[in-house]
């Protein structure tokens, strides 16, 4: 499937999607409530078979916190980028995809560690790099007077 067909196909899987043809990959923005369901369908549908989650990144968009999933199918070699965001900066919570792609286990822990996004149903959600007293350094409002030089 090329990008357009893939976009049509994904549109048929769930409502409320915002599909954009990016410069490189097809980008799909999903509301957090739909995320898990869509992810599972993308993994399991015969036509999609996105079995390789090659990048999972947490992003601080300023007002929102978001997670970007880069998915690839090793069978059809097509790529889709899933994006989801939540505006709750105090207690951000998203669904975990760790049971769909096992690699998400570590990646979600990293996102939790650095951005403070909690993942529901994650098997082992602990901080990965930093200790518990640390803030969430990848957030834009993170302040560290000692280690960061402000120009």
């Amino acid at each position, binding site marked *: 499937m090329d990008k357009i067909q893939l976009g049509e196909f994904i549109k048929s899987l769930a409502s409320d999607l915002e599909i954009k043809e*990016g*410069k*490189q*990959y097809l*980008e799909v923005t999903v509301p957090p409530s739909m995320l898990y369901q869509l992810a599972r369908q993308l993994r399991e549908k015969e036509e999609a078979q996105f*079995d*390789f*989650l*090659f*990048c999972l*990144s947490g*992003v*601080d968009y300023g007002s929102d916190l978001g997670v*970007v999933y*880069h998915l690839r199918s*090793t069978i059809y*070699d097509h790529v889709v*980028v899933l994006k989801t965001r939540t505006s709750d900066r105090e207690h951000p919570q998203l669904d975990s995809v760790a049971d769909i*792609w*096992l*690699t998400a*286990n*570590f*990646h979600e822990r*990293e996102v939790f560690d*650095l951005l403070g996004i909690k993942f529901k149903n994650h098997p082992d959600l602990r901080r*990965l*790099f*930093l200790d518990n007293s640390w803030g969430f*350094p*990848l957030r834009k409002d*993170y302040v560290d007077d000692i*280690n*960061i*030089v402000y*120009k």
Partner: protein
Amino acid sequence: MEEKEIITTPDEEQEYVINMGPQHPSTHGVLRLLVSLKGEKVKSIQPHVGYIHSGIEKMCESITYPQIIHLTDRMDYISAHINNEAVCLNVEKALEIDIPDRIKVIRTIMSELTRLQSHQLWWACFGMDLGGLTCFFYGLRDREKILDIFEETCGGRMIVSYNCPGGLMYDIHPNFQKRVKDFIKYFRKILPEYDQLLTGNVIFHERSRGIGKLTKEDAISFGVTGPTGRASGFSCDVRKHEPYSAYDRVQFKEILHTEGDTFARYIARIDEMWESMNIIEQLIDNIPEGPFAVKMKPVIKLPEGEYYQRVETARGELGVYIISDGNKNPYRVKFRSPNFSNLSVLNHIASGFKIADLVAIGGSLDLIIPDIDR
């Protein structure tokens, strides 16, 4: 008379837990593995990372694109050149710059040399992990020759920082082609020696065959890439699937094995060394003339948007994800490091084996800790 209470402890408390690392000879750095044992058998492994977490992703947000290059060196310091290339390619793609062939070819040769020296170092350390100390010296002896070539051209030996957005830092040294050719001639004779020392050894076969099996499905699900993934039959060579630089003009095989055990991972890397030499040989005589760098604006600003670039480092797929808001600093940089995903599979494949096997499996995954911690 008081009734004596029979104290029973749950299984978890009876576990014999040892800390492998952060200062342990076989974790190659400051990886800490919390290993619960039952006798010699490994029940489960919990990796604890972050001892050298340096916040490279956060740092990148406050520096310019040419500066990022120098941080990427420090991630996977054994394949520094390929990390540089990933960022450069991403910036060039975003700016839509045409890169002259000369740069592409030199980058490819340097990448393959980097891969070669990385695999040599891996072979050396893997032999040492299994107790064959002599391997270490053989591997490092040959690696030194590549580092000398690097030193002559790049000025640095390991942390080269030879790439910059728009090309290379400087032109290749006049001796470069001759020395690379000499090295390839030399190493083609030496590589069979590696096989004689380790590959054919009965003890080595006993120690590596059938140990730490990783199926193709698991490799894909865990995102295990590079020689480790390819040893399980997961075709994940970015050089083939999304060719960059000059990889589309050279002939080479993607090394695929199906066994997925430690031995397959070992053989996959040895075969990759042969393939790397093939690639270099195809290119070294045909370096086109031209400039070694494209004239760039003094301040590089990426247009607003998101850019993703994948390259194949010596350990797997490195992804650089840049979100730009149009400034001279990136808004967000994410490095999808191959070692991070490769580490996550360790518990899955090593539990149930013995401690000695854990060391062998850890060695065959070829983990570089700064790349995990970033």
